[in-house]
Structure formats: structure tokens, C-alpha cells
């Protein structure tokens, strides 16, 4: 019977698994001062959405909460005016 891993070992393994997501610099939009995420900027929005038309998670895109929120609103506005699809 394999030896059961201790709680600490499991926590460390989890840390290792998520290290690549944690060790990152600031959000790409934070680096640009005075940047406004706009629904008309379809190119940027498309690149942060999957082929299905869903916005990538913060974990995947590396955005901070503030800019992820702005992106969410921008995507929803762009969808409303028919610039982005609701379903890809």
C-alpha cells in the first residue's frame, strides 16, 4: 500500500503546481498609465477571449482584478453592439 502523503507535503505540491501562476509581474494594463479599456478596441478584447467568446480568467490572462473587471464590462458592451459574439 503506498505511503499516504502528509498534509504539509500535499500543500507544498499544490504550491509547486500553482507557482507558475503566482510568480508573475504586474498586470499588462497596469504598466500603461492612463490606459482605458474600451469596448471599441475589438482586437484587444478578442485576444483576451477564447474561441467560444468567453473572457479568459485572471489566472490565465494575468490581469489584475481592476482591469479584469473593466475588460468584463467592455466585452459585454462590445457584445451588445454586435462587435463580439455572445457565443463563438
Amino acid at each position, binding site marked *: 500500500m503506498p505511503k499516504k502523503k502528509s498534509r504539509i507535503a500535499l500543500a507544498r505540491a499544490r504550491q509547486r503546481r500553482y507557482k507558475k*501562476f503566482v510568480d508573475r509581474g504586474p498586470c499588462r494594463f497596469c504598466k*500603461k498609465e492612463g490606459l482605458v479599456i474600451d469596448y471599441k478596441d475589438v482586437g484587444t478584447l478578442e*485576444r483576451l477571449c477564447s*474561441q467560444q467568446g468567453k473572457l479568459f480568467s485572471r489566472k*490565465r490572462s494575468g490581469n489584475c482584478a481592476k482591469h479584469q473587471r473593466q475588460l468584463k464590462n467592455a466585452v459585454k*458592451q462590445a457584445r451588445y*453592439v*454586435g*462587435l463580439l459574439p455572445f457565443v*463563438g
Partner: protein
Amino acid sequence: MEEHRLTTGSTEAATSEPAAPVARTRPYEGMFVAFNKEARKTHEYLEEHIQALLAKVGAKVARFHKWDQRQLAFEINGQREGIYYLVYFEAPTDVIAHLKREAELSELVLRALVLALDRIPTEEELRKRSSSAEEAMREGEELRGEGGYDGGRRPRSDRRGPPGPMGPMGPGDGEREREREAEPG
């Protein structure tokens, strides 16, 4: 008691007239998507129609221009194409609902999005904003290496292969898409 209340009410009405509420004026950005069959030949009448809508509610137009003519991401009112008009205007806050309603009732306007602004941006500001967003995206890609915006994830063996019914997964998709775009035809 009843009598007293009645008399007080009547005197108040006679002496102090309720002041008419004055709506605050503020800047707005409006995006109007309009189209119909005739718009393929000429679209001046669409412009006039939108300007008439704005004039009807008493909006003061600061800037009005055709932003783009493009395929819609999905069909709206049986139309697959749309002409986008971007308008910056100032209007009293209480007419916006009326403007939206008017746009909704119009057969030419497919969609209208009105956003409140702090101030109307200049042309220079708009240009700067779009270029900085592009730059941010480019730098983000550089940082995250080949994987781009995927957060440095490498394609796993189970992520390779043709896209499934739920759409392709993982960062390989972006690469595949770019390759497809690069291919002529």
C-alpha cells in the same frame, strides 16, 4: 382636525410653488448601429436619422462620425452588416432613457449604446488610448513568451489535436489560429 389639515394644505400650495426640477447636463458617448438594404448604396440618410433622434431629445452634438462599417458578430433584426456611428454629445440626464426608447423604436437603428462620460475626450486622447492598449497587449505577449496571453502554459499532450465540440482548449489554439491566418487563402 380634518379641517385644519385641509386649510394648511391649501395655504402651502398657494404661497410656495414647487420649483421645477432642473436636470443636470453631462457628456455622453453614443454608439449607434444602423443599417438597411438601401444603406449599401448610400448611408447619408442614416446619419440624418440619428442626428434627428439626438435633436429630438435636445442633445447638443459635439462630435459625430462614422466609426466603421462591418459585419456584425451575429444577426440583428435580420441584418448581418452594420454601420457604426460614434457620437459624443451633451444632454440632460433625464432624456437618455427617452433617447434609448426612440432608438429602440426606430427601424433603421439596430442597436444604441449610450455611456456617460466625465468629459468629452479629444482626438489626441483617443488615439493615445488605442495605441497604449495595443502596446500593453504586445508587451504582455513578450513577457509570457511564446504562449502569449495564456499565462505561460505549455500545450499538454491531451490538449493537442483537432478542436473538440466544445471548442479547442489551451494555448495551442491561439497559435493554430495565427497559423491559419498566416496561410494564404
